[in-house]
């Protein structure tokens, strides 16, 4: 992790630093995805799906709040869920790059969700056994929602893949285009070494994830991209794509314009 554009990034963490980072991985993933999905509101392909996608957006943002609230306690005085969401700049965000990729068309959004929902499913399933009691509790509460999300996005991948020629072609392209953002999800990170083993090491989820994705893509009559393809990285270290800057500029505009106001 030395050399290249990630140069200068931290490589050793104390236990407390690692805990905070771990919470940010989870919370920022949830917030950024929730924020992105909320843009579909009033733009879905049919009213029923508008309602469905808003539901998942609500779940993600709700989970982000629980995680930020717990992180605020660790951070101590002056930190709240809202200072974490609204007063950090892009370098401080730890979400995976996949989540800040634009919504694109319905197929692009569905595939982005499918990749992360599948990841989240194995991750949060494991976190139910976490020795951090609050995190285990959040995982227990979230797993039902995540299972539903994973089912929803997988079913849509299948429908689009095995639907019309047009939808097949479109969703195959979504998969191919978004594939290079998936490798980062399973990267090892010094944070995992600083925490006890009950904090799921993301790199341990790769095989399960690949198997599940392969199964769904096969059912959807879609081609699985090469698992060994070149992958992008940076999000977990705070090095983001240009998209995140715009997402935050929009999301944070009001509290930053009126920093002394409460809403």
């Amino acid at each position: 992790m030395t050399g290249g554009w990630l140069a200068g990034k931290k490589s050793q963490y104390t236990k407390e630093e690692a805990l905070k980072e771990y919470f940010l991985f989870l919370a920022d993933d949830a917030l950024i995805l929730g924020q992105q999905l909320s843009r579909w509101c009033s733009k879905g392909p049919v009213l029923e799906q508008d309602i469905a996608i808003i539901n998942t957006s609500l779940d993600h943002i709700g989970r982000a709040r629980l995680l930020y609230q717990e992180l605020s306690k660790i951070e101590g005085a002056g930190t709240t869920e809202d200072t974490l969401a609204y007063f950090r700049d892009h370098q401080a965000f730890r979400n995976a790059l996949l989540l800040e990729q634009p919504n694109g068309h319905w197929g692009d959004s569905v595939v982005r969700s499918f990749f992360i929902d599948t990841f989240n499913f194995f991750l949060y399933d494991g976190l139910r056994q976490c020795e951090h009691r609050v995190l285990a509790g959040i995982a227990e509460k979230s797993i039902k929602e995540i299972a539903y999300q994973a089912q929803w996005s997988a079913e849509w991948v299948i429908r689009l893949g095995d639907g019309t020629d047009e939808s097949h072609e479109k969703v195959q392209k979504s998969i191919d285009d978004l594939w290079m953002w998936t490798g980062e999800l399973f990267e090892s990170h010094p944070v995992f070494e600083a925490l006890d083993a009950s904090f799921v090491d993301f790199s341990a989820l790769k095989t399960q994830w690949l198997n599940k994705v392969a199964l769904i893509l096969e059912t959807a009559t879609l081609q699985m991209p090469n698992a060994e393809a070149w992958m992008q990285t940076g999000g977990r270290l705070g090095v983001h794509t240009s998209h995140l800057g715009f997402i935050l500029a929009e999301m944070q505009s009001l509290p930053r314009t009126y920093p002394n106001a409460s809403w």
Partner: protein
Amino acid sequence: MNKDHWKLWEVFLRSKNGLSHKHVGSLHAADSEMAIQNARDVYTRRSEGISIWVVPSEAITASAPDEKEPLFAPSDDKVYRHPTFYDIPDDVEHM
């Protein structure tokens, strides 16, 4: 019917065990799995149901009102019965 038009489904919810499923409305979906999912999202946003049935609207056969003695004939007011699955909530007056 256009290629992009989804068919209509009737939705029935059981609010808790011990009660029968009750008609709550309809929605559009391409297939039964989607209809169940949509019903969950649309009709149970406030945990209104623990069991969902969906039925294609076209599969329901309803009794025809008697043409000769319309159900709304004044003399029949007191014996008027609405079709069983269109149930008027008890609290309609209190809202």
